[in-house]
């Protein structure tokens, strides 16, 4: 009896659902035609490829959904990828401006933000970057960014000195460390200054290795090994961050202890990473993009700083390198890979 009632109820539900789907279908079709012009378009500017952005993109979509937008249903996203060639960014940004997108999302570094900023002063821009947006000339004020852009910044750039500190803690007997810097990065100078100050405070010697091309990575690790430096500290730079896998492989291959900003490096077998949580920063960028789509003005949205900084350490890599972590680091780590 109950089963029958249940079956009847189910049938009714099914019928209703069918009707509803038919109705919704026609409504969607109608709306889709209406939306063809009306649906807002996000112009997403990325410095690399969709594959390298994968986890960041999903965080971004999460944030967008939190603000009530779903790609393909309530918002369209136009992607422009620089595929690692950062000098292409301004042209790609200009392309998005020509497409007259509703909002430009410039995610994945100061370069992208600056390229988008120089391309338009009218289309709202939501950026995601490391480093101090004021110092980098992206905005004038964090609380009242003014103009047409706002966004999220992580603390990755500020904490590059902490990476040196951690490396020095791991290799307390060594006084010489190598630092990898991308000279094309707008933050390279400030980071270098920071790192030199930290080296002075810690009483260590720094060897700066400038590098902005993937094919030079191998030579860089060879150099570190040959100079017998205690370890290689990567400055914060998206170019390095997006190539964490390759860097981890090279570090293992050259048995060089290294620390980068990205957790991807540690997860791929690298020794340590310390930097901002990009999952959070991209998610917040998604939320902001959604709020701008809803009509809020970028100038009213303060620049958000993702304050969470995470330390990842890989014990397997450490044992491969013949290194043991001091208890202070083991205790402080957000995640220990064993």
């Amino acid at each position, binding site marked *: 009896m109950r089963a029958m009632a249940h079956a009847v109820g189910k049938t009714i539900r099914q019928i209703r659902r069918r009707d509803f789907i038919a109705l919704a279908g026609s409504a969607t079709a109608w709306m889709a035609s209406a939306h063809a012009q009306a649906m807002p378009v996000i112009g997403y500017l990325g410095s690399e490829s969709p594959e390298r952005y994968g986890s960041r993109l999903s965080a971004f979509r999460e944030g967008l959904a939190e603000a009530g937008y779903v790609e393909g249903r309530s918002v369209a996203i136009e992607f422009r990828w620089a595929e690692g060639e950062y000098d292409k960014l301004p042209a790609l940004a200009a392309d998005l401006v020509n497409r007259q997108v509703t909002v430009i999302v410039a995610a994945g570094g100061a370069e992208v933000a600056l390229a988008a900023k120089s391309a338009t002063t009218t289309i709202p821009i939501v950026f995601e970057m490391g480093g101090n947006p*004021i110092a980098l000339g992206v905005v004038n*004020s*964090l*609380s*009242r960014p003014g103009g047409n852009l706002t966004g999220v910044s992580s*603390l990755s750039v*500020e*904490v590059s*000195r*902490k990476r040196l*500190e951690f490396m020095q803690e791991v290799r307390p007997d060594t006084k010489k460390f190598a630092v990898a810097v991308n000279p094309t990065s707008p933050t390279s100078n400030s980071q270098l200054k920071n790192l030199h100050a*930290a080296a002075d*405070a*810690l009483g260590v010697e720094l060897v700066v290795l400038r590098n902005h091309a993937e094919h030079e990575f191998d030579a860089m690790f060879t150099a570190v090994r040959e100079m017998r430096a205690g370890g290689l500290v990567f400055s914060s730079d998206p170019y390095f961050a997006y190539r964490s896998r390759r860097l981890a492989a090279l570090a293992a291959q050259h048995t060089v202890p290294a620390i980068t900003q990205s957790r991807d490096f540690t997860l791929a077998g690298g020794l340590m990473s310390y930097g901002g949580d990009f999952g959070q920063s991209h998610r917040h960028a998604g939320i902001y993009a959604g709020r701008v789509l809803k009509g809020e003005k970028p100038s*009213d*949205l*303060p*620049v*958000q*700083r993702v*304050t*969470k*900084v995470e330390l990842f350490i890989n014990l397997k890599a450490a044992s491969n390198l013949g290194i043991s972590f001091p*208890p*202070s680091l083991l*205790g*402080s*780590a*957000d995640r220990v890979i064993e």
Partner: protein
Amino acid sequence: MSDPAVAPRSSLFKKYFRTIFAAVVAPLLIAGGSEAWFGYHDQRARLNDLLDAEARLAAVKIQDFIEGLHDQLSWTVQLPWSDNTGDRRRLDALRLLRQAPAVESLSLVDPAGKERLFVSRIGLNRIEGGDDHTANPAVVGARSDRIWFGPVTFQDGSEPFMTVAVAGNRMAVGVAVAEVNLKFIWEVILGIRVGRTGEAFVLDRPGRLVAHPDISLVLRADETAQKPLQTLRAAILAQPAGQATTGQDISGKTVLAAMAQIPGMDWSVIVKQPADEAFGPIYAALFRTGALLIAGAVLAAVLAYWLTQRMIGPIRVLEDGVARIGAGQFDHRINLATSDEFERLATRFNEMASELSVSQERSERISRLKRFLAPQVAELIDRTGDDRVLDGRRVEVVVVFCDLRDFTAFSAQAEPEAIIGVLREYYDALERVVSAHGATLVNFFGDGVMVLLNAPVSCSDPALRAVNMANDMQKSVQQLLVAWRALYPRLGFGVGLAMGPATVGRIGSEGRLNYTAIGNVVNLASRLCASAEDSEILVDRVAANSIGSRAPLVELDARALKGFDQPVPVFAVVSGSTTP
């Protein structure tokens, strides 16, 4: 009866409808109104309590966050400073950073006010930095009160930070000074939901926004934008403690807000709920009550209409019935089966109608009887409404016959107009006399007239009364005859009367009814009249014996009369003599 088209000035239907409707609706209105009123106040009080509790809860949650920090920091100020504890303290401090994500950096200051350790998430750690902190207000404050909260500052004009300093239970353990990123309260605030969409926020003492679910409001650190929130707080403060108030939030929406203070920090935790959501249940209840009232009123109207209709319906039937009966339709019966007073009333009307029909029948009969009854008889019957006096019976009566002599010859030669004129005067005179003497003119045929005494109305001494009447008849008719003899000189007038038992009563069919007497005495009176001369009044022996000497009578020779075997003794009234 009254014309049904003439509407009454005020209708019973309206009166009853109004009364019944009011009787039902007034208590309903009073009950509903008071219910709504008290319900509103109860709900309002409950809402107030709810918001107050939410505010306290939110304050407790934020206090818990601060207490948590305090507890964490307390760990670092338990052991006295000595030279070989440095590394352990560093580990403790690093573990604290790991445990308390809101702590951005931590300094440990020894009893002498020197900074012995500094750990940070961003900056480089320092061991034995040695900076002098004796004048640092955080250190001074913590030393005097064990815990010290700094003012909320906005780093880079945006992120809210606060310095928290904690001292141990004795000088030797020193002071821990932590920079706390208040953005982490955000997660606490985000977790607070008031109702469906209500939220909480935190203002510091000067009214700056410390925490708000929309973090960008906090980060913007825009004092003018936060003005409405300060106004809201002022409005709550103006209320008695624990009382919620309505105000406007940043977006200008009307909200209901309550507040709780965090002791020791002078922070205000304010919870707000959109007014339309907060009052939603109240409005829903009011709406429900209103709808019920309207439904009740409609029901009352229907009920009142039905009841009134039930009452007025029988009245209309009664009215119609009474109108028909009044119009003479006595066979009409009011058909009501309401089994109440109306039915009784209808039965009364029906009884009345049948009685009316009986009495009408009687009055018709009486009016018919009046034709041959003396006016006093008619009046008697009319008054008593009883015509049983006319029923057949055997009674001693005096029968008087009179007619005109030679009228047949006169009528053969005279003009009809003259004949009719003579007869009219003749009957007028006779009827006057008959009435005057209380006799009953029962019949007339041409010029002959039959008058009865002692029937149908009995009277005393009918014989004498008959003689006197006969005398008056002679007098009246003889006066008329003076004129009539000019038309026909041989006209005369004779009267005969006899007394004896006779059967009297109504005879004839329904259509033609007569009151008459049957018996020998009638015959005798008729024969006496026929044998009387002009001006003569002949009386039989029975009547003469009854009169005796009260009237002057003379016995004549006995006469042979038709229908009588023996000669009949005859008396004549001495003309001109009358007894009073």
